[in-house]
């Protein structure tokens, strides 16, 4: 990357000081260890490759989440969205899921998306919680605005945390009224919904240094779940 020209600088948003997300390790139901860590811009191309096959998977809202996430990741990489972050979950270095969001200001976060690649192990729940942990505990915000594309998935979060209505605020995703996770609710819910160990063991962290892709066939297969009636 060369130096930033004046013209380019015009199109780049100013950046807030965002403390980095400290990686953590989570033991999944399978006994496998998932490392949750932040990714830098240089790792985005790999993530885009993982999401690409899902752009055409209609089931479970994967297509719309993949399409929007793709654009958000690209915008993050190319400095076209303000104060965005991306966290990934890696099992043996292989991408299991990813979450993203951004900071509206020092007090308010805007949750974007949660995508699970490795299903059946609550990876999505763990990563969504990690995102909330980042906003509230590590960045120190007061609240996070949240909506979702999937009605059933969203209902689960609405009820589980629980989230409150903040209908006076429009969410950036599609303009529907926001729901919000407050600092108080986060800490009340933390024992049930947030887990993981820090610091991450050196070996484990080293194994998660590079994001490895599941094969394209594998991404689709994992996302679509088992083949069911088809042999």
């Amino acid at each position, binding site marked *: 990357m060369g130096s930033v020209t004046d013209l380019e600088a015009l199109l780049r948003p100013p950046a807030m000081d965002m403390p980095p997300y400290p990686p953590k390790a*989570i*033991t*999944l*139901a*399978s*006994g*496998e260890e998932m490392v949750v860590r932040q990714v830098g811009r240089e790792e985005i191309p790999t993530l885009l490759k993982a999401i690409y096959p899902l752009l055409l998977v209609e089931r479970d809202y994967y297509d719309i989440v993949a399409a929007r996430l793709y654009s958000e990741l690209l915008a993050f990489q190319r400095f076209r969205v303000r104060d965005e972050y991306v966290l990934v979950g890696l099992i043996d270095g292989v991408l299991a899921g990813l979450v993203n969001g951004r900071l509206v200001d020092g007090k308010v976060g805007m949750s974007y998306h949660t995508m699970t690649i490795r299903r*059946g*192990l*609550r990876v999505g*729940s*763990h990563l969504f*919680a990690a995102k909330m942990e980042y906003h509230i505990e590590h960045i120190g915000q007061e609240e996070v605005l949240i909506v979702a594309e999937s009605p*059933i998935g969203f*209902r689960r979060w609405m009820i589980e945390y629980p989230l409150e209505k903040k209908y006076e605020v429009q969410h950036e995703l599609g303009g529907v009224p926001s729901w919000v996770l407050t600092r108080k609710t986060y800490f009340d819910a933390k*024992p*049930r*919904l*947030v*887990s*993981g160990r820090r610091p991450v063991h050196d070996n484990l962290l080293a194994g998660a240094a590079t994001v490895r892709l599941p094969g394209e066939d594998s991404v689709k297969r994992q996302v*679509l*779940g*088992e*083949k*069911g*009636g*088809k*042999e």
Partner: protein
Amino acid sequence: MRPVYIVGAGMTRFGRSEWPLVDLAAASSVAALHHAHLGKVPVDAVVVANMGGGRINRQTALGSALVDRLSLWPAAAESVENGPASGASAVKVGCQAIAAGMANVVLVTGVEMMRAVDGLEATDFVASLSHPEAEYIYGVTLPALAGLFTRLYMSKYGVERKHLAMVAIKNHDNAMKNPYAHIHQTVTMEGILTAPESVVNNPLVADPLGMFDCCPVSDGAASIILASAEVAQKLAAPRVLVAGIGQATDTHAVHERQDPTDLKAVRLASAAAFERAGAKPADIDVAELHDAFTILEIAESEAAGFFPIGHAHKAVERGETKLTGKLPINPSGGLKAKGHPVGATGVAQLVELVWQLRGEATGRQVSKAKTAYACNFGGFGNNVVATVLRKEER
């Protein structure tokens, strides 16, 4: 009463199906027909087991639909609905036809496509088997009834969550060797119970039961071919006799059971099945039980007579119910990991047992399996069908 044999068995991979309901039913039917090698022998009757077709898939009269799809006219046909015990009930109906001399060959197919609707709808659909005024209105779901049962059972017999976890771990392990299982994923004690992360990994569904104590929502179909002795004798395959079937009911509302920890219907149905089969629980080499909830595998194994009441969890701890143990239970992975397409389950249990008895359960074969038992648990234990199968030497 004529003896009845199972001469063919087949099933689809359980999980999530893109196919329409009748296609699913046809797939397992064809697999079973191929397995049977009937040649020119006609199928006289078709019995379909299904619980949700009318509500979830908006299709009724599935017996007739399947006859048509398989071009088996003018075979007799009907659907049988007995909640989660529809499968074994359908088998019973087919056996009765042959025993009475009204048919020589009957195709029994259980099928369910639950994933056509979302999880909330599926939960509510299953909850519809509870008592409408005394249970359903309170928000009772099937997991809720299981939760109420589990707490009481634990308090009375000292069963702990770790015993339930052992059942789940075993069944997930077994399913890894079953290409037809819904879930191919091993789980560990640490991951689902002892690690701090387990509260997220294994969230409560109906305390004290967690997600990994409850079977998944599955699509799938399973079929068996029943035949008279005359037909069975002409076929080359090992003969599996339906040695005995028993059925019993109990009160609808769980609170009205004489003893809410006593699976009386399992006890009575099993006793009847054993009596008709001229067998005892000790004769059983392999069993498929109805572990819609892990606690049920434990409780059913006691009520059926395999372990003294209150002692099955210790047998689980000793590994006696593993594939390599004294009494392998749920070599298929059980409902927990093989999956539970409601109408198909009772038939799928027998499919697994037929394969076990014929030495065809590759990768998970129980050695020298000669006599087998299945328990299909309808409602929340208010309608149970128990079946004993026996391999006959030629």
